[in-house]
């Protein structure tokens, strides 16, 4: 066999108090698409950050085409032929799409001026295969998250790199966008590029990768040929135990807790009406941009509605600020955790307590003993790991950050929980925990709304699904009628389906 394109040899990485990687070795051949799997915190991103020159390994070396390379900084890694798509979007919103794609190595005229047109032309070329509607000249900040992720992918394609590392490139993409990405990745592989592909979506990995390496707690558990193994065995390698395949159980009662009538915003949401029952999990599906996030923000008081009416337990309720919503028992677990969810420098306890200060400071001074007790209780409930309540939240994995945010609403006594993409970037283990948590909450009588772009997730969780299209409810599907096809059929705008738009609940 020829020399592998990329080889990790005995890589270890020790952060001041965390051993993120121990003796990681595996290799990826030219033209191979190699999956890298593992739970949150397994060390996947750390490994790729070493590959792209952001971290230096404590021990071990990276070999490219059999030769050890010094990847001392991102520039050196680029020079060595490595391109990387980062898990956290690494972009400058003020610059244009093309400028972002060429950031750090702009095309110039005479070495002095940025060749803007040329950059935009090349950027458009790279984008064409993924999403031709993205204009390379607009400021990146004006794009939606999904489009930004596509830009991030296209940027890696520009480099004509020999190794492309993708760290959860599809966390905000829809299945159809994934299809296009899969084609692009196959084309790269055909050209002899080695691709390392990290994703928590196992179907994707099984769909495009030939082999996969599975990591747990910073060590390689094994490398497998994906044609030879089942999804289930991979999952058990990842989590180190069997994950019970849980069945959906409905806890919905007939008691209407939240009733929305003709809710609309100035921008995206038009005339949304529905009822939410006690103990019910209501799924909201729809294409990116169909207005789901904005609907949840309206309900959470984060944005103001331009018209419409909301009743909670039959009483008209004003939701003009998050405080109103919280007082009414509504809490939002937002889509962009880092930007809208956490206060990074503060501890888990502080982040948890933020929405219910009144509870912890009945006489104006925080009762720290009580805060500690309740934090311990809620965090145990959501199974925070590691169980360090005073540690700044930014040092936790995404899944555990998400658990802390859920704990925030439990502590606030929230009865209506709104989840926006609750498992984005979260591994199978933590995902199962969050699903389980959502079901428990419903069983206890909480009402839950789950917005998700992952149809299996919606189908797994929801008692009932609203399909949104163009800012309004295009269809309501009962559990019995749920299927990916049914949802997709209503989500995609079709001129002939327009007549069916009036289908609404609670009208």
């Amino acid at each position, binding site marked *: 066999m020829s020399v592998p394109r990329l080889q990790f040899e005995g890589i270890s990485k020790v*952060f*001041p*108090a965390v051993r993120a990687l121990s003796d990681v070795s595996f290799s990826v051949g030219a033209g191979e698409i190699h999956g890298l799997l593992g739970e949150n915190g397994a060390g996947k991103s750390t490994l790729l950050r070493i590959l792209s020159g*952001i*971290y230096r390994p404590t021990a071990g070396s990276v070999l490219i085409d059999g030769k050890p390379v010094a990847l001392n900084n991102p520039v050196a890694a680029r020079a060595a032929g490595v391109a990387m798509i980062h898990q956290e979007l690494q972009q400058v919103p003020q610059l244009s799409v093309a400028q972002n794609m060429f950031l750090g190595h702009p095309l110039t005229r005479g070495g002095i001026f940025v060749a803007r047109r040329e950059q935009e032309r090349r950027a458009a070329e790279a984008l064409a295969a993924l999403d031709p509607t993205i204009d390379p000249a607009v400021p990146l900040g004006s794009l939606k998250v999904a489009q930004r992720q596509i830009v991030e992918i296209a940027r890696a394609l520009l480099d004509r790199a020999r190794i492309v590392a993708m760290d959860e490139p599809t966390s905000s993409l829809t299945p159809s966008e994934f299809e296009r990405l899969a084609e692009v990745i196959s084309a790269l592989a055909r050209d002899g590029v080695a691709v390392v592909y990290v994703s928590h979506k196992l179907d994707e990995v099984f769909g495009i990768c030939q082999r996969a390496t599975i990591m747990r707690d910073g060590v390689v558990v094994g490398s497998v040929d994906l044609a030879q193994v089942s999804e289930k065995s991979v999952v058990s390698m990842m989590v180190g135990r069997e994950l019970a395949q849980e069945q959906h159980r409905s806890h919905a009662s007939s008691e209407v807790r939240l009733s929305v009538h003709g809710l609309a915003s100035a921008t995206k949401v038009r005339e949304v009406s529905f009822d939410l029952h006690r103990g019910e999990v209501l799924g909201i599906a729809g294409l990116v941009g169909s207005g789901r996030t904005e609907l949840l923000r309206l309900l*959470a008081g*984060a944005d103001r509605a331009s018209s419409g009416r909301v009743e909670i337990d039959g009483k008209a309720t004003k939701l003009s*600020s*998050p*405080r109103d*919503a*919280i007082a009414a028992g509504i809490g*939002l677990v*937002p889509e962009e955790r880092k*930007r*809208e*969810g*956490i*206060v*990074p*420098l*503060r*501890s888990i306890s*502080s982040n948890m*307590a*933020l*929405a219910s*200060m*009144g509870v*912890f*400071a009945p006489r*104006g*001074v*925080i009762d*720290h003993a009580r805060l500690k007790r309740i934090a311990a209780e809620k965090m145990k409930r959501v199974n925070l790991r*590691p169980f*360090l309540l*005073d*540690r*700044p939240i*930014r*040092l936790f994995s995404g899944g555990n950050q998400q658990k802390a945010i859920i704990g*925030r609403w439990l502590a*606030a006594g929230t009865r209506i929980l709104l989840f926006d993409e609750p498992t984005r970037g979260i591994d199978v283990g933590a995902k199962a925990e969050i699903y389980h948590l959502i079901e428990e909450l419903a069983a206890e009588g909480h009402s839950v709304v789950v917005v998700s772009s992952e149809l299996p997730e919606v189908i797994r969780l929801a008692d009932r699904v609203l399909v949104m299209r163009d800012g309004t409810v295009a269809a309501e599907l009962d559990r019995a009628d749920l299927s990916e096809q049914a949802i997709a059929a209503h989500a995609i705008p079709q001129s002939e389906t327009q007549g069916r738009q009036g289908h609404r609940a609670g009208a």
Partner: protein
Amino acid sequence: MTDVAEHSAARPRAEFLHRFSLRDAGTLIGLIVILAVFGALVPGFFAERNLINILQQSSINACLALGMTLVIISGGIDLSVGPTAALSAVISASMLVAGVPFPLAIAAGFAIGLVCGLLNGMLVAYVGLQPFIVTLGTLSTYRALALIYTGGNPVLGLPAGFRAIFNGSLFGLPLAVIIVAVVALIAWIILKKTPFGEYLLAVGGNEEAAHIAGVPIARTKIAAYMISGLLAALAAQILIGRLGAAEPILGNLWELDAIAAAAIGGASLMGGKGSVVGTILGAVILGTMRNGLTLMNVQSFYQLLATGLIILAAMLIDRVTRGRG
């Protein structure tokens, strides 16, 4: 980059507490070094009397710097503290001279401070203007109002009774020092023990997340500026008590000293970070330096040089103590 770097400095629980006190410890080490140097160079530097002097001379800056720290934590900055103090001072003073009872005159001064802060806060929180520019604008505006109100003249002849309030001593410590110590204690409690403190840290740390978590963003910011205004007014009362006169030009460049104290003490001008203990230490460092340089009879140009270098040195010591970022 910073972000990445800071991650690597973080550790599990025991180290977490450690880390926090570490930052303040860095400032403390800076102070101890400076004290040691002056102690070695200036005979009688450690005399009780002189140490009390240092505290007294640091007290006004410390008072302002505490308010500044809260504003900085909330992600803002308040350049208008000096003029706010001046406005408060001349109004209290002219009421006192006109024979208004002390409590009323003092309350009026405090009210002025609160109103100045309220205006800053509203422009920042409701109108959404940049704090630096808002308070740069009100810096001129409040100063102009103080000058116009007095015609540029100092207000003299404050009643002895009023002056006694702020000039007294208790347990051998000047009352001004005790007042500021109490203020520091309150600020510490606010920051560590009250919802408002959490809100400040959250608003400065991630405004959008705080908003969704139901934190009253605007009220929190406004309150920070109002506290800063109130403490500027308190500093003004202490000062006019000490000097016996209120000048409309009082408080010139106070903002820079207050910001320096907060920053030396570990406040980050990006918001979300700051320490009451650190700020107090920062103010004492600056006060010690002025005191020591005067006692050494350092010529004015060299005093200026030392001021600059010590600010830089304090930041460097801090950096080293915390490890390379």
